[in-house]
């Protein structure tokens, strides 16, 4: 079972992502801020991390950079899930090591498609 980490300060968002992925077979972890997200990631080594940008403490891109700097996270897929929609934000995220970028608001189907693209179709089975 693939491990998925959801890092977002908004409980509604974490709930929405979790509900969306409920249909698949995932071990789902949640973190309400950047520090927690890093702790969980180091402990669980998730296959996929959804990162909000604007969070208390470390921002999503900072967490992204920290995850990428940890060699233990090799193969980890990071998807930014954020309301920031400027093109330069996408560039920044890419530079920081994000694999993909989803702009809020998003459709649950779109999210699942991203998961499939990133982890492969078998992840959703």
């Amino acid at each position, binding site marked *: 079972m693939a491990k998925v980490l959801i890092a977002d300060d908004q409980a*509604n*968002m974490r709930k929405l992502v979790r509900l969306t992925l409920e249909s698949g077979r995932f071990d789902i972890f949640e973190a309400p801020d950047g520090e927690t997200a890093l702790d969980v990631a180091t402990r669980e080594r998730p296959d996929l991390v959804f990162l909000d940008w604007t969070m208390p403490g470390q*921002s999503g891109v900072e967490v992204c950079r920290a995850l990428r700097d940890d060699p233990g996270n090799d193969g980890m897929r990071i998807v930014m899930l954020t*309301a920031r*929609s*400027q093109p330069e934000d996408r560039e920044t995220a890419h530079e920081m090591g994000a694999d993909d970028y989803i702009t*809020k*608001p998003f*459709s*649950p189907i779109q999210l699942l498609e991203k998961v499939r693209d990133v982890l492969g179709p078998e992840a959703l089975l």
Partner: protein
Amino acid sequence: MSARGGLTTRMVLLGAALAVAVGLAIGAMLLTIGDMRHAARMARHSEQVIASANRAEKQLLDLETGARGYELTRDARFLAPWRAAQATLPRQTEDLAALVADNPAQAALVQQIAAGTRAYLDEYSTPLVDAVRARRSPPPPTAGKRRIDALRAQFARFDATEQRLADRRRAAADRAAARAITVGVIVLVAGVALLLAFAAWLGRSVAAPVRRVAAAADRLAAGDLSARVEVRGRDELARLARSFNGMADALQEGRDELDSQHHELEVQTAELEDQQQQLATANDELRAQRDELEHITASLADETERQRLFADFADALAIDAALPDRAATTLRALAGAAGAQVGALYAADGRADGRHDLVGTLGLDPASLPARLGRDDGLPGRAIAERQTVAAAHDETTLRVTAFGRETAVRQELHVPLVYGDRAVGVASLGRTAPGTVDPRGRELLGHLAEMAAISISNALATTRAQRLAVINRAVLDSVRDGILMTSDDGVVLANPPAHRLTKAILGVTIEEAEPLEPTDVAARFADAEAFLAAAVAMAANPDEPRFDELEVAESGRVFERYSAPVRGAGGERLGRTTVIREITAEREAERVKNELMATVSHELRTPLASIVGFTELLLLRDPEPEVRRSHLETVHAEARRLAELIDDFLDLQRLAERGRLPLERRRLDLRPLVSEQARVFAAQSGAHTLDVRLPAAALMTDGDPSRIKQVLANLLSNAIKYSPDGGEIGVEGWARDGVVGVAVSDPGLGIPSAQQPRLFERFYRAPGATERAIGGTGLGLALSREIVEAHDGRIGFESVEGQGSRFWFELPSSPSYE
């Protein structure tokens, strides 16, 4: 000439002989006179000797009588003549001896007398006086008498001898005098005779021949050319006669010749008279020509005078380019030509209304004249409208003006339009105080001067307009905020004050210092040096292309907009480039803030929207259990409400931006219920925070818009919760004092760094770190709150210490309570 036979020689010889004869005679006479004088002197000498002898004898007697008197009387008075005689007698005898020193006999006698006298004195007279004085017995008087008698006898002998000598000498003197007279008479007679003889000779040998020559000369002078003089002898007179005869011969000959010449002359005179006649005729012709020439010369002088007048006028106009000076010059010249004493000049400034302004006066007070003239304003207006000189004559009383400080009658007025092209640029109104009209020549002159004046005034007006325009252009250039700079191949042609300021801000040096710099010298100052250099290259390559770019100064972060375009002259030639520089730092900053805001707004809108979209899709996709569905719907609803609030904030901001002030729906209300309600709402939202609300028992009445006041309260409460992420107690209090009611919200949160405090109420301002800390908000909350409070004529403020929390408060004017 023979000296012997010469008349002059003879006259000299005769004169010399005469002089010798007279000299000899006078010499003899002088000798005789000398004898006579000697004899007389000798006689006088003898008399002197006798007188001296007599004086000596008298003194001797004085001795005798003095001494004897003294003896008899013993009276000292008798001693006075005695003493005098005793003192002088020896000298007297010496004098006498000196006088007769040339006569030995007499001299011897004098010696005897002197010796006798001394003896008498020493042996008798002195002893006598001494004896008498000493009252001794005197010597016997006989001795004295004897001696005196002897002495007196000697004196008598001496006198007699001397008297004889004197008589003899006097006789000799008389004889000498008689001889002298005789000699003198003889000499006189002989001299006169000789002189008469000489005169007679002169008359015979000189005067007569001269008289003859003179008579002949008289005849000659009378016209008798045959007069001749007889020649006698060989002397000078003969020569004179011969010369005279020669002259007469020559005269005779000359007259003969003259006679023939005279005839010739008569013939010539006749010819000359004929010629003179012809000359007179020619002369008349010449006079006529001269008159004509004089006439032409006079006209030429007149014309020259006119040309000079024009030239002077042109010069005077050229000297002063200013309109008032040209107006004054014009008035003087026109008044001079018209014989006018007063005048006024009006000129049109080319305005649409065609009115003319008073630009100069002559002899008149400008204040007494209308400042402007139109085409309908009387005679000058007519002159302007018709472009013709208008003249009017007045009798003595009709037109009076105040000129030269007194009232003056104007007998004739002339209004001369100054026509340039087809336009009257002005009109000169001239007044003559003398009656009469301007003659045609004067009018013509006036016309010419008016033409010149029209050109000059027109130029001055154009210059004035151009100067005014230049001033306006300058003022406009100086007043704009943008830096405007014109450069040509010669460097900077024009730079307004902002250009100087901005150049300094951009390049760090003055325009003058920047001129020699190359783009490569300054490129390093810009954040994007490459773009700057590329622009410089492009500008050099395409000088005719306008360019537009932005320059950000790396050091200051200030941003400038630069527009540069070629400047072309009227003929299309390139004059240079204009560069307009404008600082857009503030605009860029505002833009940046706005972009950030847009991003924030977008972000803030998207966040609730994400929940709404996501949960509704889930509901649609999965059709969950009713409880789950309800939970989803509640989430959607809450997020939708949040979205609506954000949109309201944003719309408020837009309204503020457009109208400057929020519209209020005010009514009288109590703040306490509003505060309580909002506190309850926010208390429910956060589990981590507790709210401590303290409100007074009395109503907090104010006139306000409840929804707006609620908005302020919500904002303050929301901030208090957001900026105290660790939870804690949020204090809410209300109060009334001094005509105001107030509410404060305090939190134990992050606080606000003092550097940020002044900016807190700025629109779009968000505390740094707010986004990083995921503190939601539009950056409009406090700005909107301030707008709302100030719209209520209230105040809003805060106190905060970084790390220790903040206390925000607002006060509104209290509304009088009716209770």
